[in-house]
């Protein structure tokens, strides 16, 4: 079971390493999108500082959504996805491994880059630490939720837009508590409650999203 998980996970990472530029696109999108906000709302440091956690979180959310289209698309196109499901191995494990690989390739770089952008937007170091931790807890939830959307829209003409429409409403709780953690710390409160809820959301999605993704894959490949 865990062999299967590691095999699929390692395979996805290896495939991504063969197409490095493509793998870096989500993070490039994140950087470009986050840079647009100061240009849009104006360079006043106070204003930027106030909207920084929200900007970083929303851009991370959008970067995750846009990278989801490719999660199953190439495996679907070359038939390897069908082989994985026909292999008799658990589709749930495959779905979990692919979501984990997706997070490693898009979520983790976002977590690493986010403090840099917080800094550019004028956040102080305490808020930066909270922002990073909230992203670390929140982005796996986004990858897991997103894999359900990616599986449902497999092979559809407008899959990219559909995924965004399907998954964004579901990811609102993660967004609320992710940015809420930073706001709480800036307001002099503890962020522990927010971390706990983000953790609870992560556990809930980790338990429910892979089976839902596996069911969605079966529906899409029927």
């Amino acid at each position, binding site marked *: 079971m865990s062999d299967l998980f590691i095999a699929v996970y390692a395979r996805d990472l290896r495939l991504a390493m063969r197409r490095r530029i493509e793998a870096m696109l989500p993070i490039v999108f994140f950087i470009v999108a986050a840079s647009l906000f100061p240009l849009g709302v104006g360079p006043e440091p106070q204003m930027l500082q106030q909207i920084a956690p929200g900007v970083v979180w929303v851009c991370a959310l959008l970067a995750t959504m846009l990278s989801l289209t490719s999660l199953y698309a190439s495996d679907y196109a070359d038939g390897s996805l069908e082989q994985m499901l026909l292999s008799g191995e658990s589709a749930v494990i495959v779905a979990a491994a692919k979501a984990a690989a997706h997070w490693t390739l898009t979520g983790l770089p976002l977590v690493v880059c986010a403090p840099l952008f917080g800094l550019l937007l004028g956040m102080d170091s305490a808020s930066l630490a909270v922002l990073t931790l909230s992203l670390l807890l929140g982005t796996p939830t986004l990858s897991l939720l997103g894999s*359900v959307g990616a599986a*449902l*829209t497999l092979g*559809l*003409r*407008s899959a990219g837009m*559909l995924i965004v*429409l*399907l998954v*964004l*409403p*579901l990811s*609102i*709780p993660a967004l*609320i*508590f992710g940015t*809420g953690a930073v*706001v*709480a710390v800036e307001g002099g409160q503890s962020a522990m409650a927010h971390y706990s*809820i983000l953790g609870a*959301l992560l556990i809930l999605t980790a338990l*429910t999203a892979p089976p*839902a993704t596996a*069911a*969605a894959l079966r*529906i*899409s490949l*029927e």
Partner: protein
Amino acid sequence: MSAERIHWFTFAAPSRFYALAGAVAPWLWVAAAALAAAGLYIGFFVAPTDAQQGDAYRIIFIHVPAAWMSMVIYMAMAGWAAVGWMLNARMASMLARALAPTGAIFTFIALWTGAFWGKPAWGTWWVWDARLTSELILLFLYLGYIALTEAIDDVRRADKAGALLAIVGAVNVPIIYFSVRWWNTLHQGATISMTAAPKMASTMLTAMLLMTFAFWAYAFAVVFVRARAIVLERESHADWVRALAHKEQIA
């Protein structure tokens, strides 16, 4: 026991549902019109003017029933979609598909009338209140369901994918609602609470209940009509649909 079961599933056959819905729909339209006429008359002419809000509050007679319907229909849609997926019942899937546009339109009406009410009552079209925000997110969930089912050409796949999405959405609705509520208290956004409504006069309650029943009747009627259209579309290869079309042609 077995007779009971057969009785329950009689109208799961699209042909029998088609006949039943066709027979019931006109009565539902009449009921919807009569109840709405009575409800609107009591709401606009009999019910007293509110001491604080004047006559502007009267939009409540459309707003509140629409908001109720928007939530009930989502649950019904998710339920029928789940039944259709798990039991492979075609009629249940068709009903779920037929419910979605009506639910979306009720959600839209609730938001729209809420904005009309908000302007005189609060001085603004929109506040990021927890209820308003969750209602908006509910509209997004409906749109997602409709967009997904319409984007898939294969009917069976569309029904099942829609069912999965509706179930995931139904599980998430409470989580979304409570996170939005907490978010709202965190940000101190809206200072107006809609929960502290003054006690209602009994005529107001009567009008509201009449409008609620009118909306129920309307929802049933329009969903039945839409479901009949879906049945005809999907069962166009069946003998009874051909026979029906033939009869129509002669008449």
